[in-house]
């Protein structure tokens, strides 16, 4: 897994060669990478340093006074802010709920799609479609034609069952946003788990059948352990993307009503765009980065373990 190796660890091969040659060869290898590296530094590292600098400044767009140094005040404000804590909690709830439910549904769909039936190709394509729709377009379709309290399709469909004009995005805002995320990410989970199912050797299953194991027992004892690395991978990738969810929140509820759907990315956006508080937003951004790193450390450890598991088993 060369992709996962950090360049900092010198590989034994390099250490065995004469120093001069290795240095020249090293640069020959690095040279083609340099443009990309410089580009990455320019678009990521420099803005990060600027953000760090702003996080120690009091700088408001709507106040003509120039920015000035205020020490750790922005950070104190972030840690004492109920709004920041609230959005942090909502981010965790949103991400965890949607990833777990999407994975459960995805596994169920994958198991069904793994069977042979007429029109399987068409059904597979249809199931994947939500993942191919642009998140912004999907959010707009859900916000208007689907969930609108007066003209929405969902209320129209539910009307025969005695549900009348439910304002989904007002009374069940967080749930609605999570449902849309699940709708969008279930296909991804299905694909990953389906790949896992298809890599399962058929002779094992046959052997289980010969030994008299029922379908449920086979699934629990053989299929599920085989799928474990795939499920872990799906959960990891889903979490990385969904923790940054912005499109659905911005376009469906704008973080509201009140602050009931404000997650961390939207909170940051709001600090800059509605509160014009550049310093506070920068500080909140830096804190978010630190928290993300802590979570990512554990997640990537697991990532590494998943591949190791796969290598060992494969």
């Amino acid at each position, binding site marked *: 897994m060369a992709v996962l190796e950090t360049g900092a660890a010198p590989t034994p091969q390099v250490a065995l060669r004469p120093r001069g040659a290795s240095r020249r060869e090293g640069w020959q290898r690095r040279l083609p990478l340099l443009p990309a590296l410089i580009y990455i530094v320019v678009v*990521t590292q420099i803005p990060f340093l*600027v953000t760090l600098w702003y996080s120690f400044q009091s700088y408001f767009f*709507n106040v003509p006074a120039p920015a000035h140094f205020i020490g750790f005040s922005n950070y104190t404000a972030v840690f004492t802010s109920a709004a920041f804590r609230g959005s942090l909690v909502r981010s965790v709830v949103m991400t965890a709920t949607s990833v777990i439910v999407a994975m459960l549904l995805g596994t169920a769909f994958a198991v069904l799609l793994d069977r042979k039936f007429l029109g399987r190709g068409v059904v597979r394509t249809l199931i994947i479609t939500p993942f191919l729709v642009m998140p912004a377009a999907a959010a707009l379709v859900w916000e208007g034609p689907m969930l609108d309290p007066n003209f929405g399709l969902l209320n129209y469909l539910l009307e025969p069952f005695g549900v009348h004009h439910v304002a*989904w995005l*007002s009374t069940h805002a967080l749930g609605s946003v999570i449902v849309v995320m699940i709708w969008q990410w279930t296909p991804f989970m299905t694909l990953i788990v389906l790949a896992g199912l298809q890599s399962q050797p058929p002779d094992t299953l046959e052997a289980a059948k010969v030994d008299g194991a029922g379908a449920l027992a086979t699934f629990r004892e053989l299929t599920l352990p085989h799928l474990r690395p795939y499920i872990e991978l799906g959960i990891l990738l889903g979490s990385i993307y969904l923790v940054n969810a912005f499109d659905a929140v911005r376009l469906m509820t704008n973080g509201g009503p*009140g602050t009931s759907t404000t997650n961390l990315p939207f909170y*940051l956006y709001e600090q800059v765009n509605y509160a014009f508080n550049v310093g506070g937003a920068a500080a909140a951004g830096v804190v978010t980065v630190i928290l993300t790193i802590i979570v990512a450390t554990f997640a990537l450890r697991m990532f590494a373990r998943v591949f190791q598991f796969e290598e060992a088993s494969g």
Partner: protein
Amino acid sequence: MSYLRFRPRVLGVIGCVTAVVAVAACSSGSSSGSGSTGSTGTVTVAVVSNPLITGQMIPLTKSNFEKKYPGIKVKFATYTEGDLRAAIEKDVSTHSNAFNVIMIGPYEAPLFAKNGWLDNLSTQYIAKDPSYDASDLLPPIAKSLSYKGGLYAVPFYGESSMLYYRKDLLTAAGITMPAHPTWAQVAGYAAKLNQPGKVAGICLRGLAGWGDNMASLDTVVNTFGGEWFNEKWQPQLTSPAFEAATSFYVNLVRKYGEAGASNDSFNQLLTLYGQGKCAMWYDSTVAATSIAGTYPSVFAKTGYAFAPVDKTTSSGWLWTWSLGIPQGTSNQGAAWKFVSWATSKNYDSLVASKYGWAAVPPGSRTSLYNTPQYQSAAKAFAGITLASIDSTDPDHPTVNPVPYVGVQYVDIPQFEVLGVEVGQQIAGAIAGTETVAQALKASQADAAAYTPAELSGGS
């Protein structure tokens, strides 16, 4: 297979993904070209996405203005109200100068002028352009856009607020709407007219934003005798009057209002009313123009009453979407050509020739109200619009004297943030995620974060 070891560079890369998002917002926009004073070049205009702009101004610019001035190319950036404020504020305060013309209102014009962010249109352009006839602008509107005697923006249209009602539905329910109703009467009518699932008793704004739900609510607060700040600049959001007004508004919309009100503002309510889903609707006077143009069958059944009152004699808000030119932008000559074209008398006749007299942007020029064709085409609502605008008093918006200017806003820089925060709380109360008392307590805390000295320094 090697384990992944964490080093600063890995952390940095992860970190930057988030950092880029935060900083990208700060460094947007760039000025284009060198400052030419002639009347050619590209003019970028930031506008609000209201029907009179997206449906008339933008197509007419292409079909008329750009033909008239072949050297000028106009580009529009359309935003919803809240996003427009954010985009403009960032642009002018950082002198990014991405916009050559900005659409602002009486809140922004004096504040921006004080900060030196806007051109003084009176001295720089109107003085040299006698055909513009600035004395024809409606006095309350012109006054609201002035700072130290100079006009810093000119009105595209002006508005107050009033109550729309469906004459057919009220007659069927045996209700006669007085010209000057009280809120108690309106609440009684709403209860009678409400048919859940079919027609809302009254449609009201609930979307968070100081120009959205707070504009409507503030007029109710004012007429109930509430205020944002007392004369010592102490916030009064938990005062009995403010609380009574907010409870009244929230209960009214929750009981007899449209479903999902916390996501509705002008554009959504215009659609609902136009499709016959509201028996009454309290909103901007400019809606009459859009109803007349887009929903003729509902227009024929619509009656008009002055903004409902409680303790005061009038309670309409005062607003105008106006065009201003940020200081130091390029192509200023071309920018003024566009601004004067869009706010001129000729623009009115141009709209009339294409869309009919009833569709002309109202509330900006006296001459429009003296035009016989407009008087007959818009006779249903022209009189009440003009009278509503004339009866507003931004210097004395409520019962008690207050230290600030503004009917449905407080003309201080902090209000940009405070108004949105309070608007979110109220939207939460309308959606039912919190009580009115909780919402106002949180709002009061937001307001109390500023010292009276900070607040008064800004006014």
